[in-house]
């Protein structure tokens, strides 16, 4: 069988989840002694093709069209590539842009689609694993079809490395411009005064804090620690802290020496932004997925534990 991975780039650079998808794709291809192809649409496709030629890649298809990602172009190009290559599995990163065209390709070609997959197996058929209920439960799905479209969660596979001996094929997709009905006009960076990515110590607060007034207790903890206050998305959405404090997929990636997550459940979109040397979690739900990534945890009410911790640290 053939596995076709679609790579992703932004502002001239291939993005890491592309190389992770290559690893996932190679594992699948190995399970059946098949080939691994990769497709890349737009940008400096020749340079992208060189970088995508990692160990285990058999063929790179380049589609030269446009500089940046446009979902209408990608949908058309990838649908045509799938029809030409006839892969058993079409894989893309589960990123904002991966999710922005792959469902349309699947719908158009009538391919069963499963997104945000964290594990894949092929044994006479494709079986995938994904999370439900914000990561508290896992499920496996079997797909009974000759082909399938899958997005794989960033961070779930290591990046493919080394150099392969892939051929490069310039794929001649025909883009119907009248069907391109969205135009990317630019990018905007969301900046702020505080750069949580720079901080050595972060106290991050989540929806468990319940109200803006209650932020005071985490602020006090941050103060004794000399830490910067950060947050998960709901705290930002509620306007309790400014956007520059958001940690996670759409916010900042942080790598502090110490990260204390208070009342944060630990969804993939949050924890994908945290690489801490020491990770502490305080959450009253023993099944919260934050305990999968934490080094130290307390399963208890944050309104009891946080003030007690602040008091304790004041004394030391």
């Amino acid at each position: 069988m053939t596995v076709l991975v679609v790579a992703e780039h932004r502002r001239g650079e291939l993005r890491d989840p592309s190389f992770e998808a290559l690893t996932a794709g190679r594992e699948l291809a190995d399970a059946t002694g098949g080939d691994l192809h990769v497709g890349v649409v737009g940008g400096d496709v020749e340079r992208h093709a060189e970088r995508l030629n990692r160990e285990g890649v058999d063929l790179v298809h380049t589609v030269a069209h446009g500089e940046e990602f446009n979902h209408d172009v990608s949908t058309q190009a990838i649908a045509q590539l799938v029809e030409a290559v006839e892969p058993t599995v079409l894989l893309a990163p589960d990123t904002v842009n991966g999710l922005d065209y792959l469902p349309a390709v699947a719908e158009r070609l009538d391919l069963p689609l499963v997104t945000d997959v964290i594990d894949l197996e092929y044994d006479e058929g494709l079986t995938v694993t994904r999370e439900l209920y914000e990561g508290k439960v896992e499920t496996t799905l079997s797909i009974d079809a000759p082909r399938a479209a899958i997005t794989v969660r960033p961070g779930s596979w290591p990046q493919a490395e080394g150099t392969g001996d892939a051929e490069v094929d310039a794929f001649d997709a025909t883009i119907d411009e009248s069907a391109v009905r969205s135009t990317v006009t630019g990018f905007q960076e969301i900046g702020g005064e505080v750069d949580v990515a720079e901080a050595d110590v972060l106290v991050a607060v989540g929806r468990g804090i319940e109200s803006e007034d209650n932020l005071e207790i985490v602020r006090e903890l941050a103060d004794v620690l000399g830490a910067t206050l950060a947050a998960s998305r709901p705290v930002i959405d509620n306007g309790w802290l400014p956007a520059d404090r958001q940690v996670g997929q759409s916010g900042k990636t942080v790598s502090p020496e110490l990260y204390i997550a208070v009342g944060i459940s630990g969804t993939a979109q949050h924890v994908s932004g945290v690489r801490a040397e020491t990770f502490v979690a305080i959450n009253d739900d023993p099944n919260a997925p934050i305990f999968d990534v934490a080094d130290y945890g307390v399963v208890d009410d944050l309104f009891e534990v946080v003030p007690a911790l602040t008091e304790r640290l004041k004394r030391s």
Partner: protein
Amino acid sequence: MKILVTITEARSVDTIFEIDGLDIDDRYLSSDLNEWDAYALEEAVRRTEDEGGEVVAVTIGPEGVEGTIRQTLAKGADRAIRVWDEQLAALDLLDPLTKAAVLGAVVDAERPDLVFTGVQSGDDAFGATPIALASTLGWAWGTVVNDLRLEASVAHVHRELEGNLEELTDVERPAVLSIQTGINEPRHASLRDVTEAQQADIAVRDLADLGLGGDALTSSIDQTALYEPEREGEATIYEGSPEETAAELATVIEETGVMQ
């Protein structure tokens, strides 16, 4: 202007729960209006409040979801449609393409100017239905929208990408727009609105009503297992009174040397 908003009742698992086969018993689940859909609804209601028009909330689900749908009426939707029948109930899994096919038939029947959806539902988090829906309709789409300005023939959107970066995109209308949390501040319904919504009619449609007959809905995706994930990490969990656990945490923190 007529805006159709797709609505999901999202389920969450209580602190303590048991898995029974491929299900979690209802008594361990709570349900509520999907977080992302609340923002999509609010965005739609604000537009029609400004310019006139109608907001139609559409959901796929059994009678039990009507409580949640009434919330959308209380928060400003003008009408609500619920699609359900035995064929849908018999499906193992409502995957994004199946949902898109059903919602697409509702859009065909209702002919709205725009469709707003949430970016994802909090429970199964496929995040793919809006794009699949746009594709079935042959409409344009814009996803993960956290800022929106509408003109007669175009929607100017900000799409939220990764790492504090937004993409500015112009999307031709009609379009399906998936709305990200934080774009607005969803309103709380007043007691009077809630009471009125209790009395409102919810139109119920089956697949035949929507012209989706027979085997229109087949899915080749089957759920084969449901389980609690093995805890990957080696987290040291402290137990005891808050004073005791706080003391343990304080020791850990002191040992990191961050407090000079």
